[in-house]
């Protein structure tokens, strides 16, 4: 459970900090719920036959879904008063498929005092290795 009453501040962050990872098991039910919720109804994201016909091992996560999970990863770290400025650029390298446990991770890459921004490396992993890699930019409140 996330303790939302706790707030992270800009001066508490340093380069190299790892942020708490999150994991999500991908079931076909979850993929269908997600397609209905994000409105990307492309067959490859909910129809095994269609996904396999395109060379994928099975139904796989859409870019909308991946962006949403990176948002959850960042939000749970920056708290209610943090701002998400940018997600990406990130590259989708390997399919995140039904049956996978996908873990989303991040690490602080730059702390930009002048702008008050923090740049992070973000990525996702499955048993097949890193599936997406990229970066994100957030802002945190300053004390006083």
């Amino acid at each position, binding site marked *: 459970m996330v303790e939302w009453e706790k707030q992270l501040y800009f001066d508490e962050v340093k380069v190299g900090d790892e942020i708490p990872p999150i994991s999500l098991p991908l079931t076909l039910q979850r993929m269908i719920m997600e397609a209905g919720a*994000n409105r990307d109804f*492309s067959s490859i994201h909910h129809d095994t036959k269609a996904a396999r*016909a395109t060379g994928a091992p099975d139904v796989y996560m859409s870019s909308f879904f991946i962006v*949403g999970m*990176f948002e959850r990863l960042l939000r749970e770290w920056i708290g*209610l008063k943090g701002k998400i400025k940018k997600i*990406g650029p990130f590259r989708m390298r390997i*399919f995140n498929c039904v049956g996978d446990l996908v873990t989303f991770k991040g690490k602080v890459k730059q702390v930009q005092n002048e702008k008050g921004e923090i740049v992070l490396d973000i990525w996702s992993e499955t048993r097949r290795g890193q599936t997406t890699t990229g970066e994100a930019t957030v802002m945190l409140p300053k004390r006083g």
Partner: protein
Amino acid sequence: MARQSKKQGKSITWGKYGTWEGTESFLGKEICYSVGADVVEKGTIRRWLEPKEFDCPLHYNDEVAKRAGYKGIVAPCGMVMTYGVEPYWKPGDPHAKLGDLPKQIPLPVLDIVPAPCTLSFASDIEIEFFEPVYTGDQVTCTSKLVAVTKKELKIGKGAFLKQESIYMNQKGEVIAIMHIAIFRFVQPNGKVD
């Protein structure tokens, strides 16, 4: 992440077929304007949070959102892409017939811009956020083809087509700008099926 499929003898097309001259004729031009199917509201936000097991009170608790500096409940930033998607069917559209192929998400650099390619995959994405999205907002999206970079990869020969999509609210404020790159290609032996 190649996209091409066949169903009941018909092909789901992963891009409009044409020439490279046809592709380049769209470069720098607005290729699509869409109005999102749904106005922002709590029910669609809740359903978006659910499959991600995403519990953040900014997105369902008005008081918490106000204490954090917002005017009220805000949609998750990434939901702007969802709120920019047009309806798959709307009143006045023809009814589906048995055997029709399933509709895919509209993606202007695939559906509107032609290319001499039959396969495609999304490779890179970036989305920058500018304004919060509140319940009651109506999102629109204007897309442009901003780059065509020809490339030969192991999987085939083609080009990366980069689409820029600008999302706005009903007040004309820019909410977010997304860039997505799609590699459109044919297999190395020229085989397209």
